[in-house]
């Protein structure tokens, strides 16, 4: 049984439909990359999984249970964590508190603790008592990732985590993904940077205007196929 099982998912912003009957699965421990042009519906998909946008109950199943449209907090407590687009740190919490709050009321134990995170991102340890938002963009991204990891989720959702990072940091962030996978955590990676995404993903799904237009293993996909799936023609 897949960890996450999405069937015939529609999503709306008011009258505007952003996703059309999407089907998708994520296996346990699998890394899935979601790619697609701007406005294709990638962020919308993640928001629907996390319950920030309503969905039909049966359209999203996690661990075998239907979770579509449940309150976000309920969903996240079941072992899903998210690194939101734009980082979204809590300004009145320090770096350390931002990390800790990620573990609020969630199940899951495992490798990720404060100490382990400071090992992964030493700069955060050095600035643990600064307000989270006083950090630079890249540092904030690290906090956002750490905040998601600390709950030791079985599914980690990442929305454009390389956005706005210095090349060297992108490399570091991507370098930490294998150690996250090694813990058995499944990852859904929404990414513009196709090269990066394909390098770490087990499987790729391409979205175009709210529909999946391509799916496969990175090695099997040709450049042309991706190009076509991205923009249609």
């Amino acid at each position: 049984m897949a960890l996450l099982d999405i069937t015939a998912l529609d999503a709306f912003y008011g009258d505007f439909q952003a996703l059309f009957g999407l089907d998708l699965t994520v296996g346990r421990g699998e890394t899935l990359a979601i790619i697609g042009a701007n406005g294709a519906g990638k962020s919308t998909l993640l928001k629907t999984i996390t319950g920030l946008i309503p969905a039909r109950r049966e359209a999203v199943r996690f661990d075998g249970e239907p979770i579509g449209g449940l309150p976000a907090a309920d969903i996240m407590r079941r072992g899903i964590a998210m690194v939101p687009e734009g980082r979204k740190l809590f300004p009145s919490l320090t770096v350390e508190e931002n990390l800790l709050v990620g573990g609020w009321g969630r199940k899951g134990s495992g490798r990720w603790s404060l100490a382990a995170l400071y090992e992964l991102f030493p700069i955060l340890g050095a600035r643990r008592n600064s307000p989270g938002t006083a950090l630079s963009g890249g540092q904030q991204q690290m906090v956002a990732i750490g905040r998601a990891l600390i709950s030791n989720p079985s599914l980690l959702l990442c929305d454009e985590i390389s956005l706005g990072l210095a090349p060297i940091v992108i490399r570091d962030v991507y370098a930490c993904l294998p150690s996250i996978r090694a813990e058995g955590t499944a990852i859904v990676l929404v990414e513009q940077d196709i090269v990066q995404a394909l390098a770490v993903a087990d499987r790729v799904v391409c979205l175009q205007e709210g529909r999946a237009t391509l799916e496969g293993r990175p090695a099997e996909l040709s450049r042309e196929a991706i190009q076509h799936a991205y923009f249609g023609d």
Partner: protein
Amino acid sequence: MSILASAERVPAERERHYRVATGTRASTIAGLLAALVLAGLAALPLLAGRGLVQDLFTVFTMLALAQYWNLLAGFAGLVSVGQQAYVGLGAYLLFGLTAAAGLDPVLAILLAGVGAVVVAVPTAFVVFRLRSAYFAIGTWVVAEVFRLVLAQVKSLGGGTGMSLPREVTNDSALVRLTAELLGLRTAAARDVASYWLALALAAGTIAFVYAVLRSRRGLALAAIRDSETAALSVGVDAFRLKLQVYLVAAFGTGLTGALIYFQKARISPDAAFSVLDWTAYVLFIVVIGGLGSIEGPIVGVAVFYLLQDQLAGFGSWYLMLLGLIAILVMRFFPKGLWGSIAHRFDLSLFPIRRHLVPRDGTATHPLSSQGGDHD
């Protein structure tokens, strides 16, 4: 002067294909109707009884207060809980200028507005250091300071208050003129004169606010509301603009306060600086009607007035109902009654949105205003 390379001037011809439109059909009809209604209202005292004239006086003055408060809170983002400061100030200026200095009340009312601005300038430098909730409470405290200070002025009645003598209320040139013109008793003529002043005030206020909103300043106000950081970085001097709005609101509120108390003829610090009457109810009117639109306060004042007129006799039950209505409207129509209607039917009687529309047939691009279209 173009920063674009001269080679790129060719597409610049494009601008000739578009024009900027503001009006809607509803607004044109509304404009015509408004003119008719205004004429009718001006003639009303000739036809209707004193009761109606009296009610409309209250409605118009509350409407003026609501429009100025809406200008502050709804358009400039300055949520003040202290506009009673200027109602009270205007009122006290009226009393001081007429009873003590012997001016004609109509002149005194105008000067009261000016006086309110004079006081508002230094006040602004205190309250403008504060933002959002700080600003709200700060303005309230300032109004309390005004109240407490005026309560010390013995020649204006101190904490006891004072009444306008009959010579002031009844012997104004305008009142005498009205009495002669319509052949009325003095007391009734005073009502009619006040009514005309209130009508002029309310209509003038709406016209003025509308003109501001359609101007570049209105645009800049909206920009500041959305993001002050961005507004500053494109050259909008937010401080100056907000200051201007604050001063205009002080002027209008002071003027209205003076007119209200010309009619009440009695003043005391607690009454003139009442946060309940001159801010809480005004806030109720604006927010129930719909913040940030000109129509909102009009709808709000109608609702408020009807409730009071029909139900005030029920004492505390009426007040509880008022509370309940506030809660329910906020619960189900958070944009206010007009806000919800306008949203639902895409209606605007005072349109301010500038649309770029193709000149007939020549446009190179179709323009859509839908929320989610793709190209």
